[in-house]
């Protein structure tokens, strides 16, 4: 007998249907050891035998483990007979609880370093470590001490075990939890996620509905599978009344990217938006809006797009709050979104849709027409109020604006057109419809509310209309063009109207441009008349610099440019902070009325300038 083998017989693990064709294609083997006889090639009997070994005292190959099937054992030539269990129980009471006692709940997984199974062999949730022929699956209902049903444990000393132990030791930080979640809890994503634990879900919803957020969250922690949307709806709704924004956001985030975007739902986001509004958190309002719009990944890849109706509701919830609090920039973003997606008439469509639904139930034909939309009662009411709104707008204009406005306030028929023309980039009717409800109060209902409606609407129109904002801007002062003077870098020769009288050139043609730095001062430069003195003949001409303001305030000038420029002579010796001088002067010129003294000084300076202008001809 020249052949000594450990195992008498093995078995192929591949299916016959596969091997009968596959063997015609040579498979490269390990060069130095072409023939492999691994764990999966063991026969069932051999495997069962091998599996009891290598586990110190607990394996069933050990006679004292209690699981041994041997009848007797020889110890130093003494044959010891096994005491059967029923006899043992006479003096050692049996307190076995069955296979359930070997499995701890999922909530303890992280406390137990990722394990649920308390077997003496490590049970990995990975497919490969415990794999025999098929990927390893841990059956939590049938864990037995022998582990000879599916052989998934990590046996410490058996055939083929070394690489598996290495793999186990090289595992990642969330190896067990991750594999458990992916392979056991939610293997197929949201579509195939199991919704057991119905009573637990109901309890969470019930508690949250009562407003017991903390209790609901405690129950939420016990959930092991992917909860349905209702849970998130209830939890976020419970956050609204007290504005628990942080809680609402983390509840949403928990169900969003982690749990297959379950929480990415219109109602959940609406609750979130309401919470952000209650908490008066402007950036979070924008964040919810942004989340609602989603990216390609959520909208097209995951297909968790928010229903357009909900998109409208969420946006409007944010938009009204932003407008009420005067956040023009953000409000314009939200409004632009509505406009871009043609959602401005969504409220009309919903109202019409309700009517259509009733018609369908009554068996009447339905259709969606522009006429049908504009015939709705809301539209009629809004159009009736347009004239009043126009006068409200005009009043508000008069209160702070001195400019002339069109005096057509007597007529009613053109009111809407007038408004539409004035706020050209905003749909006035849509804004009026939006402004109608404040919370749940209908502002059309009572006259005192109507006042509120008009002021509200006016404000909103001013906030939303960018074109209006541009034309409404306060008149600013005009900065002078200037050119550098020879003597001092910080002193620049500014354009003043006297120069225009003389030259007829434009400032740019005289080499002047806009330049202003922190220390810059603007002057009007003249030179003393050259007399017949030695000093004027041999010494340099000393320029006379008269300081002028950096900017001209045209609003303070009367209609024509006859009057002298608004400039103040500021002598360096006159005191005052020299750093803030220049622009402070400019703004002071805007606000404070010019005094007589100023005018005198100006006129003096002008006289000097005219008389002392050097002539180079």
């Amino acid at each position, binding site marked *: 007998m020249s052949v000594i083998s450990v195992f008498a017989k093995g078995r192929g693990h591949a299916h016959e249907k596969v091997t009968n064709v596959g063997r015609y294609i040579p498979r490269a083997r390990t060069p130095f050891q072409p023939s492999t006889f691994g764990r999966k090639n063991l026969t069932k009997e051999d495997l069962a035998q091998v599996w009891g070994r290598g586990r110190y005292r607990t394996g069933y190959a050990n006679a004292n483990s209690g699981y041994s099937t041997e009848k007797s054992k020889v110890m130093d030539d003494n044959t010891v007979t096994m005491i059967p269990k029923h006899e043992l129980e006479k003096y050692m009471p049996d307190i076995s609880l069955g296979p359930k006692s070997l499995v701890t709940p999922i909530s303890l997984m992280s406390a137990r370093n990722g394990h649920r199974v308390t077997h003496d062999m490590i049970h990995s949730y990975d497919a490969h470590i415990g794999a025999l022929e098929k990927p390893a699956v841990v059956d939590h209902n049938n864990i037995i001490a022998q582990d000879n049903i599916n052989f998934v444990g990590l046996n410490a000393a058996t055939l083929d075990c070394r690489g598996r132990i290495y793999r186990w030791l090289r595992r990642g930080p969330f190896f067990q939890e991750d594999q458990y979640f992916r392979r056991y809890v939610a293997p197929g*994503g949201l579509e195939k996620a199991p919704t057991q634990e119905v009573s637990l879900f109901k309890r969470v919803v019930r508690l949250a509905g009562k407003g017991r957020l903390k209790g609901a969250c405690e129950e939420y922690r016990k959930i092991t599978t992917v909860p349905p949307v209702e849970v998130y709806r209830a939890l976020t709704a419970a956050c609204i009344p007290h504005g628990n924004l942080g809680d609402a956001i983390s509840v949403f985030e928990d169900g969003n990217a982690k749990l297959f975007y379950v929480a990415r739902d219109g109602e959940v986001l609406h609750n979130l938006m309401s919470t952000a509004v209650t908490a008066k958190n402007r950036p979070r309002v924008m964040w919810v809006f942004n989340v609602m719009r989603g990216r390609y990944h959520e909208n097209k890849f995951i297909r968790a797009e928010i229903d357009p109706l909900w998109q409208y509701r969420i946006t409007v919830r944010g938009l009204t709050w932003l407008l009420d609090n005067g956040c023009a920039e953000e409000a314009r973003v939200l409004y632009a979104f509505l406009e871009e997606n043609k959602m401005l008439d969504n409220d009309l469509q919903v109202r019409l849709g309700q009517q259509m639904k009733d018609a369908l139930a009554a068996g009447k034909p339905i259709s969606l027409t522009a006429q049908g939309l504009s015939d709705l009662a809301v539209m009629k009411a809004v159009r009736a109020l347009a004239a009043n709104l126009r006068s409200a707008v005009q009043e508000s204009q008069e209160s702070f604006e001195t400019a002339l406005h069109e005096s057509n306030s007597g007529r009613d028929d053109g009111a809407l057109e007038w408004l539409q023309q004035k706020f050209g980039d905003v749909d006035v009717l849509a804004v009026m419809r939006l402004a109608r409800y404040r919370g749940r109060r209908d502002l059309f209902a009572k006259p005192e509310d109507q006042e509120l409606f008009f002021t509200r609407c006016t404000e909103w129109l001013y906030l939303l209309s960018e074109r209006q904002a541009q034309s409404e801007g306060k008149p600013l002062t005009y900065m002078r063009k200037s050119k550098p003077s020879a003597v001092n870098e910080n002193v620049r020769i500014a354009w003043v109207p006297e120069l225009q009288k003389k030259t007829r050139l434009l400032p740019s043609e005289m080499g002047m441009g806009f330049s202003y730095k922190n220390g810059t001062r603007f002057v009007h430069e003249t030179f003393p008349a050259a007399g017949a003195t030695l000093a004027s003949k041999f010494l340099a001409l000393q320029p006379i610099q008269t300081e002028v303001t950096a900017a001209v305030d045209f609003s303070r000038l009367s209609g024509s440019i006859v009057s002298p420029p608004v400039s103040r002579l500021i002598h360096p010796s006159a005191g005052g902070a020299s750093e803030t001088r220049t622009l402070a002067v400019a703004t002071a010129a805007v606000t404070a009325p010019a005094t007589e003294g100023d005018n005198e000084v100006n006129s003096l300076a002008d006289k000097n300038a005219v008389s002392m202008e050097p002539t180079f001809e």
Partner: protein
Amino acid sequence: MIQYSNYHWHYNFPQGMEAPRRVNRFKEAPFTRLKTNTHRYQGVWVDLEMATAYRVALAPQLEKLALGRQVPSTPLAEAVADFEKYAPLLEESKVKEAWIAKVAQLGGLQRSSEGVQQLWNQHLEGQYGVTAAAAASPSLPVVLGVLFSYAASGNAEWKPFFQRCLKSGWNMTPHFPVSLWNELLQASGMLGDELGVILLLEEMLDVHADIEHLDSMCFLKALNAVEGQESYNYVKKYLFHVSEAKAKQLSRAYTTLRKQSESIGLKDNDKMFYHVLWHNSIRQPQSFSPRQQYFDYTPSANLNVAHNSNAKIETILKDKIERWKAEGVVPADYEHTDKVYDKSAAYKNIIRKEKWKKWPKIVKDARHGYTGDP
């Protein structure tokens, strides 16, 4: 020891960075994952292209359909009956079309097409026409939905419908998602429609469908149906369009599929199975396993014919080639055309000149090879 040796950096040298590495900067690997993305929507998505007013008006009926990602348990017959009841009241055909698309999608998700075909024939066939072609083309959702339900339920109607979606017809195939291609391939494969499979494969290639991310099982169910020689040749060429990783995945999936083939009612196609395995074997990098490859190799360098030391290389080569031909190492019609420059001839000429020196006689022995000994 190793660290501080001459071939590494000694600790007395300044311990700086030798050279900056920019491995991840100049040639980035695209992100691929070994496992499928569990977040991805797995069915065929059908958009609901309906005005808000209609959505509100039809809300009770639409709620029964798959608006979100979860498949409702409404029986398809009920959805169809709803449509039949309320459709006459709808005056816009676009709305009807959008609704039919959703009903058909529900059918697809539930893997049945009962009533879907009837809906199509009754309401949309007149406008668009699968059999008698009309000029108009339907919206994308309804095409996706109807085709999905046909394919998922294994309805043979998928083929004329699909042919109408080609470039010459409605030109919808570039917009098909991968999941729809999966369903179509599976349907045609399970129906045993070989020409349909070829049609699909060809079209997928033409519209640049994402062959890499096709479901291997569906792909293989289609390939399994290919029996005829021409189609087989086509598939042979086609397989070179999939990547190396995908080829491997295909061969593995095919072994699984073949184990299950009885339970899912698939014929065993040995030829195609062999070819997929073979294709994988040639696409994978070859590992050198010499014991396997040269297991029964007998070295033929030792010829029985002994050549003496003066034999010319041409002669030896000629003999060897004859020998090899006899052994089958080279083909029988092999002709050796290369000329060999015989260096040893020149060497021997030198030897011949130096006759005063005593040289050992060169003997070539079959057993010992060349030894210096006589």
